[in-house]
């Protein structure tokens, strides 16, 4: 059973209208901004973005905002609770007749992986548990990017960060495996969760269209290729994002009421193709090739997709 896009078949269906405007101080070639801009085309302007501390904090820096919608900067650890407060207040004010229904807004949490995987986990878990009607957009660049690329629990095995440097004892750099936040969310049984990558814009737009039909917590985990932190030339952002998917490292998938479907089946290019593009993995290739580390990464990818094949092909 292969996944079919119902709405977005052609690239020219990507809406022309912009909702995140230029003039921000985010890095040139930011994969997170690329994903957010595409996401905003599915969300529109009747949105309040509830931001957690991270790179995106700099989107709205006084006196400038790139949004036609609203924005509230909260904290690193509690943006989903901010979403709760706004959602509840809008509901109450509408119910009491103090706010016309047309004034209603979608609530969208913006969090980096540091917030999403680490600090805001309690707040997020609470919001999903309460079945809060909101979108959670995580721009995952696999490290604490805004502070200069330190280890987060989204950092993949084998990456070098400022706090997981490689040494003779730890030649791989990061030794932990990337936390599976998708499954942590799924265990909470939200109606809709998806991974997206900006190099697959139709997949992304389709998922936002599908998610809009569900009330409750909706996660979008966006691969956010990061030229500054991953150490590659900004122009290569789409290529890096593409290879993350084509090597199978970043599966594109969704889960509707807990049932997982992979929305794109990659041909599984060798992981080296992806790793060698990025400075954060350079130590795996020079001064000596770390075959075991690369093999470990490759092996995990294969095992992941073997399991996908077993589970989803049966259906």
């Amino acid at each position, binding site marked *: 059973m292969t996944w079919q896009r119902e709405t977005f078949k052609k690239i020219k269906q990507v809406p022309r209208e912009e909702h995140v405007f230029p003039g921000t101080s985010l890095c040139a070639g930011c994969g997170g901004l690329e994903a957010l801009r595409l996401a905003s085309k599915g969300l529109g302007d009747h949105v309040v973005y509830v931001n957690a501390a991270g790179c995106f904090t700099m989107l*709205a820096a006084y006196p400038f*905002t790139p949004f036609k919608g609203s924005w*509230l*900067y909260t*904290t690193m650890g509690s943006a989903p*609770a901010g979403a709760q*407060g706004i959602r509840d207040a809008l509901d109450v004010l509408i119910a009491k007749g103090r*706010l016309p229904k047309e004034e209603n807004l979608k609530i969208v949490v913006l969090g980096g992986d540091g917030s999403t995987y680490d600090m805001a986990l*309690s707040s997020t878990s609470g919001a999903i548990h309460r079945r809060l009607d909101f979108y959670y957009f995580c721009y995952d660049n696999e490290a604490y990017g805004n502070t200069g690329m330190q280890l987060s629990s989204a950092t993949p095995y084998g990456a070098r960060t400022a706090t997981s440097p490689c040494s003779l004892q730890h030649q791989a750099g990061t030794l932990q495996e990337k936390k599976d936040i998708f499954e942590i969310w799924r265990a909470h049984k939200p109606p809709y969760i998806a991974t997206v990558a900006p190099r697959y814009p139709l997949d992304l737009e389709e998922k936002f269209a599908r998610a809009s039909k569900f009330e409750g917590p909706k996660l979008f985990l966006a691969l956010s290729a990061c030229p500054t932190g991953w150490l590659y030339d900004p122009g290569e952002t789409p290529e890096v994002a593409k290879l993350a998917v084509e090597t199978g490292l970043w599966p594109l998938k969704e889960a509707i009421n807990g049932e997982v479907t992979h929305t794109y089946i990659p041909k599984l290019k060798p992981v080296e193709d992806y790793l060698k593009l990025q400075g954060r993995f350079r130590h795996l290739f020079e001064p000596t090739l770390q075959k075991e580390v690369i093999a470990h990464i490759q092996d995990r990818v294969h095992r992941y997709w073997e399991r996908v094949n077993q589970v989803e092909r049966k259906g």
Partner: protein
Amino acid sequence: MDGEMMTGNLAAAWGARLADVDYVPAFPITPQTEIIEALAKWCENGQMAARVVTMDSEHSMMTAAGAAGATGARVFSATSSQGLLHAFELLYSVSGWRVPLVLVNVSRALAAPITLEPDHNDVLAARDSGFLQIHAETCQEVLDSILMAYRIAEDERVMLPVIVNLDGFYLSFTREPVSIPDAGQVREFLPPFRPAHLGFRASAPHALGTAVLGGSIYSYFRHQIHLASMNALEAHEEAALEFNRLFGRRYGVVEGYRLEDAEDVLVMTNAFASKGKAAVDAAREEGRRAGLLRLRMIRPWPADAIRRALVGRRAVAVLDQNLSPGQGGILFQEIGACLYHEPLRPRALCSFIGGLGGKNISEGEFRATFEQTAEAGIRGKGIGPVLLYTEAEHSEMTQLQVLAAGPRPNGS
């Protein structure tokens, strides 16, 4: 006497109910839980038109509270002690957003060691956050202060959040008669909440709490919070007059007790001030010209009212129910600072630390306090910080230490 017997916690809940709040994000912590339990019940059975939502932590609770306020809802919440500290990061955010919500803090001493009974290190830790602070002595005052707090907070000259503080156990679980104001009159006292700068809505998008770059922008906005807080002194006075007109109870930013001819003045806050007043009466019977000044508003700091009450006295004793380790009593510092420039400042300023972790302050300890204060006044030299701690307590403590130590090795 009219009214009903109710605890300080229930009085706090009544305050929120009469203020007709829209939203109550909640998280339980002893000794605050009764407040949110009462509100949850009233909202469930339709006696209140608010939404109560149980959050996953106080940090989340304060975030939701602030965000709901920023959306235009009238918000109430309550916490205590560790909970206030867990929410601490948000206190600065909420005041920075200029969200005029009311938070009740039921004072409880801070861990470690963990304990349940009150002192004021929790609420005073929040004194620099931009929240206004009103500290209550009685259950009635808890209820009344919440109503006043909303009116002051939502004043366009202020637009800052308020903490209304009551002592755990000594008020929270203590019943006394409380008169419940008429809901219609409360509506007259407290106009509907319609803030100009808040309210996320499709037709009026805006960004709030944005990052600022550079110290001069930051300085400007932080200073605005200071000016807003200072404006609350005037707003409080106006609210107090109107409150008195409607409900017949008059509150000041400070309260003087037998101050007229007092030589020596004891400064206190919160529920233990009742004990302090009794101690003043006892001292008067012994012929001492003693009086008490209770600080009701801690932020903004009512410096003028304090100066008016304390200049020309022989000696002033500040009884801090808190301890800043390495420094002493927190309010002592602030009282000292605001009296410094007065030519007629008291001859002696004394610092006492008492009631930590809810420790009782006995009549004898008050008596010792007045004696030492009077001596200091005669000498013209202040003392302290002096810990109010008795011989009997110390010997009990020694016994406990023996038990905690256990039998010594080799029976030695």
